[in-house]
């Protein structure tokens, strides 16, 4: 199979063509640097993304506190991860960096607060 990707490893935005079957990559063309090839391979084998959202706070300055994934999670799990984030409530005070959900969905990735509240 053949797929065209826009590389997002840097702002240049190279058009990369990947030839692959399943998770086996035969060729990566169109990239202009090594990071582009890595990006293309990951996109085919196991695309991952960081996500950011908010979690409800009890007794804080704001009603919600921002959170993010501490590392990228598989792209296919984004909406499952959102369900976990939406289900949790945290009590103030919240510290930046505080783990809100450890090991979300068994990914080994934490959901952490990205601001104080």
């Amino acid at each position, binding site marked *: 199979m053949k797929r065209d990707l826009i590389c997002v490893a840097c702002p240049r935005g190279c058009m990369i063509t990947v030839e692959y079957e399943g998770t086996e990559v035969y060729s990566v063309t169109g990239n202009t640097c090594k990071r582009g090839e890595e990006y293309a391979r990951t996109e085919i084998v196991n695309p991952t993304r960081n996500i950011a959202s*908010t*979690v*409800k706070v009890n007794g804080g300055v704001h*009603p*919600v506190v921002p959170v993010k994934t501490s590392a990228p999670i598989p792209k296919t799990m984004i909406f499952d991860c959102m369900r976990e984030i*939406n289900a949790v*409530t945290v009590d103030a005070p919240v510290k930046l960096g505080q783990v809100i959900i450890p090991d979300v969905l068994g990914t080994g990735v934490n959901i952490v607060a990205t601001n104080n509240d």
Partner: protein
Amino acid sequence: MCYDVAIIGAGVIGALTARELSKYSLNTVLLEAAGDVAMGATKANSAIVHAGFDAKPGTLKAKFNVKGCEMMPAVCKALNVPYKNNGSLVVAFSEEEKAHVQELYERGLANGVPQMSILDEAELKALEPNLAPEACGALYAESAGIVCPYELTIAAAENAVTNGVEFKRDCKVVGIDFADGVFTLHTTLGDIETKYVINAAGVHSDEVSRMIGDDSFTIIPRRGEYFVLDKAVGGMVKRTIFQCPTAMGKGILVTPTVDGNLLIGPTAADMNKEDEDNTATTAEGLALVKKFAAKSCPAVSTRNAITSFTGVRAHPDVDDFILGPSEKNAQFIQASGIESPGLSSAPAIAEYIAGVTVEAIGNVGRNESFNGERKDVFRFRHATDEERAAAIAKNPAYGRIICRCETITEGEIIDAIRAPAGARDVDGVKRRTRAGMGRCQGGFCGSKVVEILARELGKEINEITKFGSGSNILFDRTK
């Protein structure tokens, strides 16, 4: 309880009439179908106090315009709202139009308009250097002015309530019965009994009239579209610039506003009856405004537009104001068919209608505690440094700027909400304080205004609306 007088419609006519009636010891109620005062034709028009040379001599329009123009400065002063006597020019762009200008001048003389003169090209361009090169003469009417119609109405309603008038918003009259000398108004807030009714329902005044069987006139709603331009170009012209009138109205004008913006418009297009509350702007209309404004002032560019809007004028098929008792019921007093120069005529119409009503009721005493001066409204942007410091010392909320573009403080917004007949929604706050009316159009302060409204009214922020029912700004909590 039975009211002495119920005024239907809290536009500029209804509100000023309510204030006039509050000079007497009467139980008066002011009913408004919308969520705030000044929501119909009053909200969106040219904001001009015409000198009075347009109307045909002998018409009610001619009579009340000249009188209203004369009364306006004092009314605005008492109500503490801005008024500026900037004068107006009807500009001729050709020799044929010069003849038309002469005709208007003579009509003005017949109507008793003071301080008019005919200017030649040099005189005209000395006064207004930014006019198009084709401009070759003008009728100059020095008595004309500009006013903010909704501020006037808000102030009049507030003053009326302070002097004892009851105000009911979201109160739409859907039917009227009359028996034993008493009207029963069926409204969305229940039945209201009253001995007299004043019909000031604007574009809906014919519908209200028909509720008592008076079908002597029909309102043809007429759309007018405008652009408001940034204050940066507010000084493009000093006076209100008219073009020669056509059958559909006074043409596209270019005028400064009392707030320092530039207003261009309106178009004039008759609408279907069922569309009379439709204030959508149209691409065609806005294009026309651009085109014809450029005829007066070529440098006017809608690149400087901060907003556009549509007003709906209540044009009556009988072509004149309809003022006084209905032929069907002498206790039902018409203040209907009020289109341009309705705003200019409003103080005179209100005085007349109140007079007619009081005379009809008979034996009405004065309201001894009446105070026609509206309480001083603190305006941070107009205050001196000393006044600002003093105001903040008294109320720290005057030290928190909410709207940066217009420099409006939290204190002013709270005042607007707590005032008699005060603001209940974001647009209401905007009209009363100008918060959100600047170049960013509420981009920054909108959410803060929503918060303040929620806090003051004891509501959740998703219950706060832009302009009444159904116009909520937010949905549910995200979490």
